[in-house]
């Protein structure tokens, strides 16, 4: 029974992998281009002829720090697309109907989905850390705990958005899933503006909070990941069992 379950989950992961192969390849190609561009920028800063613009001024350029977090941010975008991609393809092809008519257990379907999320998270985080470490190495610096914590925070956000778009795409269409995500962002922004007006809150006030989260997040990343995914797993099982995904 256990072997059978494992085989089934492997088969479902294989299906998702094949279906998203193109998107995954594009993601990795962009990653490689990004890393190459990053290396060239770093090397030009260190060894290039910078003219009257000094090396120090370029190092303090915020573009660099943006570049460092650009990769994990791209991972967030890719996750949002990936989250809804498989389910949208499953719905469009009629696979969901076939899945209901075949001896596939809803728990196995959800397990396969979230196992894939876990694999994606580990690979994405590892690549992001490796990418940042490379940038720092060129500058002759080592990664700090905070650096890793920031990457984990960003990739956990990616997982959260991935789960959100995946679940919304199961209940509604992919368009609604993406639009609703923008609405959520808009509501958060509006809430921030209201807080700013009411209590005079500014971004500077939030920086210490953000710094505290960044310092400590390395210890909470795995538990937060587990909580998000366990919740997603149970919601997915319930949606499939109640035949809400059609």
């Amino acid at each position: 029974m256990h072997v059978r379950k494992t085989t089934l989950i492997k088969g479902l992961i294989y299906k998702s992998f094949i279906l998203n192969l193109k998107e995954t390849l594009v993601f990795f190609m962009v990653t490689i281009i990004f890393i190459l561009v990053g290396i060239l920028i770093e090397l030009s800063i260190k060894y290039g002829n910078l003219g009257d613009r000094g090396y120090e001024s370029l190092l303090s350029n915020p573009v660099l720090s943006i570049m460092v977090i650009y990769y994990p941010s791209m991972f967030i975008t890719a996750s949002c697309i990936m989250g809804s991609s498989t389910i949208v393809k499953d719905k469009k092809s009629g696979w969901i109907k076939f899945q209901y008519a075949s001896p596939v257990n809803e728990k196995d379907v959800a397990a396969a989905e979230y196992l894939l999320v876990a694999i994606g998270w580990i690979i994405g985080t590892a690549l992001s850390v490796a990418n940042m470490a490379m940038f720092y190495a060129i500058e002759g610096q080592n990664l700090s705990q905070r650096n890793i914590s920031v990457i984990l925070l960003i990739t956990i956000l990616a997982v959260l958005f991935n789960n959100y778009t995946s679940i919304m795409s199961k209940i509604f269409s992919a368009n609604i899933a993406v639009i609703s995500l923008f609405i959520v962002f808009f509501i958060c922004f509006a809430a921030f503006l209201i807080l700013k007006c009411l209590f005079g809150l500014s971004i500077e006030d939030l920086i210490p909070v953000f710094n505290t989260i960044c310092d400590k997040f390395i210890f909470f990343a795995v538990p937060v990941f587990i909580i998000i995914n366990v919740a997603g797993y149970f919601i997915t099982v319930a949606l499939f069992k109640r035949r809400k995904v059609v």
Partner: protein
Amino acid sequence: MSDYENAIEISGLTKKYDGFTLDNVSFNVPRGSIMGFIGQNGAGKTTTISALLNIIKKDSGSVKIFGMDNIEHEREIKEYIAPVFDELPFHEQLNARQVSVILKSIYKEWNDNKFKEYLTRFSLPEKKKLGKFSKGMKMKFQIAAALSHNAKLLVMDEATTGLDPVVRNEILDIFLEYLQNEENSILMSSHITSDLEKIADSVTFIDKGRILLSGYKDDILESHRIIKCTKDQYKNISHEDFLSARISDFGVEVMVHDKDMCEKKYPDLIYNRTNLDELMMFYVNAAKKEWK
């Protein structure tokens, strides 16, 4: 699982939607037989099949497959059911090999060699993407997949609709071959009655969510007759003795469901054999009694 009389037993199946109700549907598909499930578009065929396969949740009623409750023993039953839908339910980016890997993980008794044999027989390429298949090829592919995991029951929802007669005949031959094994059964929904006329052992008519008629095809065709008569002759036929009558400028066609009784009661009329197409039309209009 070997000890059952009917492959499918549906009793009092009900499912309500806004504007449509599948109302107290009951019928059996005897083991080793092929049943034609006939009805117009929107009559409730797909809803019945969806409830049978637990694709949709039924409101009430019971469904037994291989003598077991379809919800309680869902996984066990579905190992031996092969659903065939009107549209290919596999992703168009995949090819036959990839689908085979996926289905192997789903069905315990998936047989790779058998699947390859069917692909060769149907001249289906293994590496071509399913999206590039023609409609006929897609249907053959579904059937190849359906027959490669030792299924005891084929459930087909409008599977032959939209196919050309050559492909349809080819597929019907495969079904007859499949039924050589007495354990195997088929439920085949269609509004193309000529296909069912060829291969079905029994038929069930559904209209507006209600079963109008269910039984062995030969018995039904034997008991029903069409009387072609004049309007004067028609006036002499009692309304209880016929199902419905089609009235035209040239005369009246009357469908009777008890040929023997009518032949005794109205010996002067001419009784013509009928077919499933005519039966469907006269049954659908039975509530009106007279129609044009």
